[in-house]
């Protein structure tokens, strides 16, 4: 059996890098490591089909010596599908553990609307949005006066000053 050296080297690097990344604590890195190692295994299966050649099952061509071995390709295809499914599951798991790490179990009982209602900063949110509207109105009035550059500048900075802490709070609350 002959194999391509390039493929072997690529496979080895992917295995090494994948195993190294899988040893990290972060789940996302574990996922990346799993993807690398999984695909390295696919490459390994592919390498096992030996030398390159003509496509295996085509109507009209007889069995000949140049045909490649089709079995590893079938195995690989199945392995890719399985890896894909597991990756999807891992992503869901990572998202869930991130969610729990951010909020704890209480996070489940809050919907988005409830989060705004129950959280202490809801009044701040409410007030700031009225302020926003007032500021927009002011800037509109100012622009109608024709002096855009003078009035809208300070307004814009006021608005961003008020909004930054509130959006920060809301993200923390979600």
């Amino acid at each position: 059996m002959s194999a391509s050296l390039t493929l072997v080297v690529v496979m080895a690097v992917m295995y090494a890098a994948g195993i190294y990344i899988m040893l990290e604590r972060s789940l996302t890195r574990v996922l990346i490591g799993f993807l690398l190692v999984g695909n390295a295994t696919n490459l390994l299966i592919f390498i096992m089909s030996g030398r390159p050649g003509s496509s295996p099952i085509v109507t009209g061509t007889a069995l000949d010596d140049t045909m490649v071995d089709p079995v590893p390709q079938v195995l690989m295809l199945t392995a890719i599908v399985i890896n894909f499914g597991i990756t999807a599951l891992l992503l869901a798991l990572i998202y869930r553990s991130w969610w729990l790490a951010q909020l704890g179990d209480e996070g489940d009982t809050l919907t988005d609307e409830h989060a705004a209602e129950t959280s202490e900063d809801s009044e701040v949110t409410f007030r700031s949005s009225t302020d926003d509207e007032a500021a927009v109105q002011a800037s509109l009035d100012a622009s109608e006066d024709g002096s855009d550059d003078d009035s809208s500048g300070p307004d814009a900075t006021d608005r961003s000053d008020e909004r930054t802490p509130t959006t920060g709070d809301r993200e923390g609350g979600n």
Partner: protein
Amino acid sequence: MNILVPLVVAIPLLGAALTLALGRRSRYQVMVSVLSLTAIVVISAILLVLVDQNGPAVVHVGDWQAPWGIVLVVDRLSAIMLIVSALMLLGVLLFAVGQGIVDSNRETPVSIFHPTYLVLAAGLFNAFIAGDLFNMYVGFEMLLSASYVLLTLGGTGARIRAGVTYIIVSLVSSILFLSAIALIYGATGTVTLALLAERIPALPGDVQLILALMLLIAFSVKAAVFPLSFWLPDSYPTAPAPVTAVFAGLLTKVGVYAILRTQTLLFPDNQLQVPLMIVALLTMVIGILGALAQADIKRLLSFTLVSHIGYMIFGIAIGTQAAIAATIYYVVHHIMIQTTLFLCAGLIERIGGTTSLARLGGMLKATPLVAVLFFIGALNLGGIPPFSGFLGKVALFDAGVQVGGGLNYVLLAGGAATSLLTLYALARAWNMAFWRPRRDVENYDSAMLNALQDDPHDEGTVTTKTTSPLMTAATATMLVLTVSLTIFAGPAFDLAARAAVDIEEPSTYIDAVFPGGTP
């Protein structure tokens, strides 16, 4: 007769699809899953009788002849595993249904439970009937993916933490398994077990050793063989009680089945006997020492589970016909008893509100029936005569003595000590939970209890204190089944012995797959 073979995988998969479609009608879901598993019990019973009389049943899927197509093989060992696992799955399903009725589907999104459970069943059966390594891998992946979902059911913090460990460990072992398959294909040009049985012995010795070791390590992670068993006691106990029962009973035994199948069929004359024996001894002793330190019944049972895997590995390591027969009998016994004991633990948790020995007491008065169930189960697992645990261990030790040699006697001593320690751990649990009066629980001061380690993920007392009669009935029926393994020990052991003959003489298996001789 051959039409029945693919049905054991097809029916649960169709059932899974149906239950998924019936997601909003839990009553129909229950009906579909109970019916499909009952059908599997009937089919595997028929298969067992037919295979025992006529030899292995072989199906070439899509009429693609082996070694090019997928081949499904049911020999005596596979048939035994099929019927036992189908019975256990059905019993646990009834328990889960009972629990679901009481909970009125509060704890878990039950619409997901039934489809996932059936996919798990399909994967399990597929691994048992697979006639080639790759199909076995697919079966493993099916049951593992389903188990990932079942273990993290509900997505609470504790389950996600436990699930992450379990999933990553399983993934690593799966990748190792797949890499081993690739290398085996590279070395022999096939993945069909029957053909591999002829081609692998022709390979150079060191290549054989590497391939055998890779498969062994991959399966040992799944079977929780020491030192690859660290993940099990941390992950299993957090799942819902019925899920833990299925995992404990069946998932580790698939690993044992795979070790048994590959080591005997593919690597009949390997040099792994001595390492396997040492590993078996360590699995038994260290596992049971872990169990002694646990205050939580579910964790305690998880450690005994790890420990008793050692007996099966011991049997496989001896490798004689008598030893294989004893191993098969022991696997069947252990699947049944471990599942039943975990269901008992589930009942204890419901009635007593906890599984921690520090907080349980007076259960004998509260539920005499569960007390009796747990007591008989504990005696059986501990290996007290006349139960099947005793018979299996005696047969195993007998096979060890027949071979002789110093290491065998060391293992015998280790096995006997493990058996006694199991009894000690379980009797202590029974004494604390059932025998101790309820009023003594407060201010109970004992150096022993203080030294025990409680479950680190303990979520406090469970408030649901109701059990449905179905839960108790399912557990009691399972216990009756395990006791009947004792009563019908003669026929059961004869069957195991005939299965062992098939394994010792792979020509039966090979001739069944290739009636016209191997290509």
